[in-house]
């Protein structure tokens, strides 16, 4: 009887742990919505969802076509306790077109392209990890905004 109870407790605890692990991913959606989108300011979010759980030292890449004469804003968000995110925008020949390290690891920047190009955004969560905090992983979201149409001035 005692063993039955023990087995049941172990089972329930395992279920709970799995549930917590799974909802960890689900929380990235609210994170992207509540934290990431605000950083886009007056730009309209394109509606694409690019977010995941990353840890210190982890890297990711995002492939996107940037269309000519369109102004884009990229906003990279992370949970507070993760180290800074280093990101670069490169072309398919790996020419570095922008490196946020040169701009104090900024997490928001605007881009325009004179001719349509497929570009790659490469990011890395730095590993200068603060050992005093216990969080090793957290949500990282990469959102793109598009500049709204400028309102035409009414003729008097």
């Amino acid at each position, binding site marked *: 009887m005692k063993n039955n109870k023990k087995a049941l407790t*172990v089972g329930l605890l395992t279920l709970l742990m799995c549930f917590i692990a799974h909802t960890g991913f689900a929380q990235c959606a609210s994170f992207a919505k509540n934290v990431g989108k605000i950083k886009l300011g007056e730009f309209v979010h394109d509606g694409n969802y690019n977010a995941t759980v990353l840890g210190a030292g982890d890297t990711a890449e995002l*492939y996107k*076509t940037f269309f000519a004469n369109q102004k884009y804003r990229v906003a990279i968000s992370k949970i507070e306790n993760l180290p800074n995110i280093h990101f670069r925008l490169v072309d398919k020949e*790996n020419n570095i077109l922008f490196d946020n390290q040169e701009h104090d690891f900024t997490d928001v920047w605007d881009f325009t392209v004179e001719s349509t190009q497929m570009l790659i955004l490469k990011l890395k969560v730095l590993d200068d990890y603060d050992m005093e905090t216990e969080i090793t992983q957290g949500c990282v979201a990469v959102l793109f905004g598009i500049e709204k149409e400028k309102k035409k001035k009414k003729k008097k």
Partner: protein
Amino acid sequence: MRKTFLLVSKFIFTFIIAISILSSCQSSDKKKNNEQTELIESTKKDVDPKMMEDFNKSKLIFYSLPSPLETAMLIKRSGARYDEEILNPIGNVTNYNTNLKMALNLGVYSADLSYTSLFDQTQSAIQYMGCAKKLAEGLSIIDAIDENTMKQLEDNMNNRDAVLEIISETFMTSNAYLKENDRAAISVMVLVGGWVEGLYLASALTNGSMDNNKRLLDRIVYQKLSLITVMNLLDSHPENEDIQYLHGKMNELKAIFEQVKIVNTSKVQSETDKENRVTTIKADSETQISKEVFEALINKVTEIRTEFVS
């Protein structure tokens, strides 16, 4: 007693295996096709070794297609007009009963919704949001589009910026819900449906002529680059039968797009304006498309889209 213990152990084991499989789905985007590999290989040049080593350690890849909202913006900014006749009729919404059809047409109606909203067609926009709501419910996408969304849309119909925010939010919520509930393949079907509808709208608005609107033609031609992203997204779910069907359709389109030439005639360079926090990417680029290829492309896009909405 031992029997119960074994039963619980079996249950836990099965559960852990199931969770592992689900988690592996989360990283299915890590897979890449040969074309993408070439891009990645080419990045090995001129890169500091430490950075390259880091990128090789973990390879999480996101493929970002132009969303229905971005595509509609591109169409509007090219100077194209509004034509309600080319949209998927709202009455069709009751015809979609399979996951594939519901997902594709959720994308299709999202593109139509974005297009109608950008042209301030308020009544149509509400109707298209209603179609998107019905399909999202059919796909059991919880909380993406509810009565509150509909009310917000109705209350803000005269405020285009607010409407675009609502559309972008519903699109992201649906997308995130599917991805985070291990239904990434369905999410890909929605994206592909939206992309094809955007391409169809742009194609239809040319009226079959390459000379009517050069900017619109340019937008269509450059979708060749987005098609690479579409193929990569589809390659992430090779085991799914619906995805295999879409893969076949997109390969037919790819065969035509391969006859379209896009060439950078100068090195890609950038200029950063620190004060305004903006970087301009500069490159000269040339495109070539013959009349025959243009017509073949328009016909193929129309054929695929007709199949999707029928």
